[in-house]
């Protein structure tokens, strides 16, 4: 396991020093900052309007619900674009540069390579979204009140969703030596999962339940509303293991390709 940490640390530092890494960070912060400030200002306007007209604040339009749930839903869409860029390097680039062979010569087991790569991605992802905790601080500083519960579950959901997408991207990356193919295919898969969410709306039972269960966004939405259902957690855990298992098999194929 120590080896996996060593590899993860290398992945993390390499990513943060690469142009792709810088771009991913910059784009994420610009977009999340834009979403956050738009949501906060529109919330302020709506609540001021209703106060002027002497109405009670519309029920269900709490700060938590309006700002954070929406913010996290929007950020999940941002992930569609950023995850392919994060995972395309993992195996595809190393294979292209022929440094993957070098990695295989080190005393790593296949399992450690997989965990090292995945953990590196998870760390990058955490470094990406944990600074958004600053938004909570800003809200408090502005004097806003919010529920801790739903915000925490939203973070948990976002973490699970991001990691699940990364596992998918890692698998695609392990199949090809072209970064472009890796990114495009990962993006296509993610969009496919997004579409499933819509398909669930327009199909009849039992198909609508089937698509609803299959789409990660449906499960994620519940988290942003502050609901932690065991079935959703189990779904994400399966999603991870399914793609990590496939990646492990894909790494192992090198032994019988030769």
């Amino acid at each position, binding site marked *: 396991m120590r080896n996996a940490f*060593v590899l993860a640390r*290398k992945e993390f*530092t390499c990513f943060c*020093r690469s142009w792709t890494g810088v771009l991913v960070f910059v784009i994420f912060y610009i977009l999340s900052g834009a979403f956050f400030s738009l949501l906060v200002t529109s919330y302020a306007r709506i609540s001021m309007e209703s106060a002027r007209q002497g109405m009670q604040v519309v029920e269900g339009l709490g700060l938590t619900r309006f700002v954070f749930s929406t913010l996290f839903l929007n950020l999940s869409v941002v992930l569609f674009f950023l995850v392919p860029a994060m995972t395309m390097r993992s195996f595809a680039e190393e294979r292209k540069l022929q440094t993957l062979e*070098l990695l295989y010569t*080190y*005393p790593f087991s296949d399992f450690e390579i997989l965990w090292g790569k995945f953990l590196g991605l998870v760390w990058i992802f955490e470094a990406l979204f944990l600074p958004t905790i600053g938004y909570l601080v800003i809200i408090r500083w502005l004097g806003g009140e919010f529920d801790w519960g739903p915000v925490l579950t939203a973070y948990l959901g976002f973490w699970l969703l991001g990691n699940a997408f990364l596992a998918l991207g890692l698998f695609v990356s392990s199949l090809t030596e072209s970064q472009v193919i890796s990114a495009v295919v990962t993006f296509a898969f993610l969009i496919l999962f997004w579409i499933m969410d819509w398909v669930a709306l327009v199909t009849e039972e039992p198909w609508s339940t089937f698509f609803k269960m299959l789409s990660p966004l449906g499960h994620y939405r519940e988290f942003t509303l502050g609901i932690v259902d065991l079935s959703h957690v189990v779904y994400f855990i399966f999603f991870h293991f399914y793609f990590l298992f496939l990646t492990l098999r894909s790494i192992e194929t090198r032994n019988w390709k030769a």
Partner: protein
Amino acid sequence: MRVKEFLEFVADVKGVRRSEKRKHIEEKLSQCGLWEVRGRLIGKLSKGFRQRVGLAQALLGDPEILVLDEPTSGLDPKQIIEIRNLIQELGKEKTLILSTHILPEVSMVCDRVLIINHGKVIASGTTEELESGLRDRHEILVTIGDNAKKDEAMTLFTGVPGVERVQVLYEKEGQVCLTLGIAKGKDLRSEISRLCVQHDIPLLEMRSSHLSLEEIFMKIVVNEPGQGFK
């Protein structure tokens, strides 16, 4: 990734102790001539330097045996010489197994040669051993500077005990080159030079002929029974 960072990563992977890590890496950096480029990005280095980075990472953790596959392929002549010198330097302390198709490199660098054909070891030994196993007699090439004295020289040389055969290899611009077949295990070079001086034959050049490793290789591989192309 920078050279030093990469070596630090490899040192961690190979389990080099934390307290020794820095010293160990610096030692390998200077051993492989990478000290000046330690802060540069590996991707931006020339091929020779990248090859050295590869060698340095292989050396981390002090393995006793190193297997190098075509270490000089794709390098320019200056880099080839540098890498060869490095390999020779390393060979003093470690066992190096060098796999290569460049035979002059083998005769320059290696102590022992193994020739593998179709997955079977068909010859092993030092270059000299391989050569002496292949031929039953030894040859000396003698060049004299006066072709009027050719016949005199030939009869003289034939008279020396141990010389089995004297042949003219070529004649050109008044010079004559002779090959002398000499019984195995004898060195008659001093004898011959003395004779030339005594009889006033201008001796321009004399050397014992060696088979090059290419010739040895061809002879061994071609002579190997039943190993032709299938």
